[in-house]
């Protein structure tokens, strides 16, 4: 058994964002973190390692010093045995499918039996990469899981769907799981582990090392025209005592915005 996990290092939830004047790019102000859902994936991978006494490898597409520092300080410090960070200039403009193709190639090369991902990355909010990885590998996938049991090569997972519906699904590994909040409680890295993690292996293959070319990751979905959220019509505070405000509110909801 070998466990894989996909960890994306993204801007934190309270980052400030500003689109450039021409909308061709944007600026992010804030610190970077391993995404909150990826943190659940990391914890599940470590729990699986503890159960099966097996190896955990983390995969990241897109490198840089801050990315490597984050992975060492969190994913490796928490117990992953190795990090694979794919860096290549051709990845700069890629899309989800390009990222997924890169991850799938790296996962295949390592020979993982199960891969944990976050349910979504909190920068692009794409919710695409894990399902694409599963398809490219020909594996089963179960998204937004809140419970998981693995026995041998069989699994039973509970997924959280729309409308508060939960389904228990069964299948066989290999499989990709995406983590929903509630799956587990991520632990914090301890200082000695953070220091020890500095010596853990971290590989930085380029696309060629994974048998891929720049053309394999050419984007088919391109985002342009970045801008602020659509403006809301300016609101107003109602005046008077509670009775007055309440009847005025009901009137406005009926007559002004016609939503009642």
């Amino acid at each position, binding site marked *: 058994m070998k466990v894989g996990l996909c960890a994306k290092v993204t801007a934190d939830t309270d980052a400030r964002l500003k689109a450039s004047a021409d909308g061709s790019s944007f600026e992010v102000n804030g610190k970077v973190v391993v995404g909150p859902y990826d943190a659940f994936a990391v914890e599940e991978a470590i729990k699986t390692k503890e159960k099966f006494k097996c190896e955990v490898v983390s995969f990241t597409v897109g490198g840089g010093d801050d990315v490597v520092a984050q992975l060492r300080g969190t994913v490796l410090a928490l117990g992953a045995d190795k990090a694979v960070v794919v860096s290549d200039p051709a990845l700069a403009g890629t899309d989800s499918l390009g990222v997924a193709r890169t991850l799938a190639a790296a996962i295949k090369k390592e020979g993982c039996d199960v891969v944990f991902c976050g349910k979504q990355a909190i920068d692009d909010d794409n919710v695409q990469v894990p399902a694409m990885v599963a398809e490219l590998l020909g594996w089963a996938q179960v998204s937004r899981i809140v419970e998981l049991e693995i026995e041998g090569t069989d699994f039973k997972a509970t997924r959280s769907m729309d409308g508060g519906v939960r389904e228990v699904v069964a299948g066989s590994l290999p499989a990709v799981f995406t983590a929903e909040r509630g799956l587990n409680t991520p632990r914090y890295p301890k200082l000695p582990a953070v220091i020890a993690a500095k010596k853990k292996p971290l590989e930085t293959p380029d696309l060629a090392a994974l048998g891929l070319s720049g053309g394999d990751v050419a984007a088919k979905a391109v*985002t342009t025209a970045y801008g602020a959220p659509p403006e*809301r019509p300016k609101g107003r505070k109602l005046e008077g005592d509670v009775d007055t405000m309440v009847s005025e509110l009901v009137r406005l909801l009926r007559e002004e915005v016609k939503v009642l």
Partner: protein
Amino acid sequence: MSGILIVAEHEGGSFKKSATELLGKATQLAAALGTSVSAVVLGDAPAADLGKYGATTVYQVGGDFSSYDPAAMTDALAAAIAQAQPDVVLAPASYAGKDAIPRLAARLDTGMATECTDLRAEGGAVVGRRPLFAGKLYGDVKISGKPAIFTVRANSFSQPAAGGGAASVVAVAAEAKALTKVLERKAPSSTVADLTEADRIVSGGRSLKTAGDFDAVIRPLAASIGATVGASRAAVDAGMAHHNEQVGQTGKTVNPTLYIAMGISGAIQHLAGMRTSKVIVAVNKDPEAPIFEHATYGLVADLFEVAPKLQAAFEKALS
């Protein structure tokens, strides 16, 4: 253009609201692009009825899809797409839309845009506008693969009026192979809409203090207008509401016509989940609460005083 294909979801034989919403938008886009609209339906549903909302052809994949598996759904949709050859596919950003549709995009080696809140025709193609960074930034997504796939956030487009005749139904045979098996389904015993599809939401925050107060104040207020109950993370963490009810960055993203925030401060992570609501009402006793910057109507007041009066006024207004 060989057309726009919409993925029409149904449950127990009735089409979901998203199906008609997508058909309405697809009809507008098709008119601008000089093309036609078709739909794909998996399993047993009154496919021809979709003609009333503008679908000329409905591809109906035979088989039992009542139990969901993303790989099987991908097989079925891929078979329908092979037959329909659409240039554009629109699907709802439902659980399956976010689970099976990206798998489909990988299968077809094409690009997709998730949870668009707007779609427009431009230069002979469809362009999707969508939120990024939990709605703090928006961008246009252009897709060069075929078909171009877009999933759409619920309530982004208005419901079209019914008209037109029956669609012609084309049966599609697919070998849909599930890789997982559903053992058990636990649905909450509720008749109100899911948060992500709800048209009206009443949410409560930390200010409610106890689950008892949350149940006594927020739930009946919501019930009085048939609204779905939502909650801030602080309320969920304090055990007043269920995690399924959390609205925000690490909860649900909602897009109702009416969102009523009772005693919620309006933290950026909460706003991330509800800022696209059409009308926002905020009740908060702190006039400086950030939620007021986003509220269509703000009431600076004690929610415990407002809630019963508002509930009575709603009941009277709707009776």
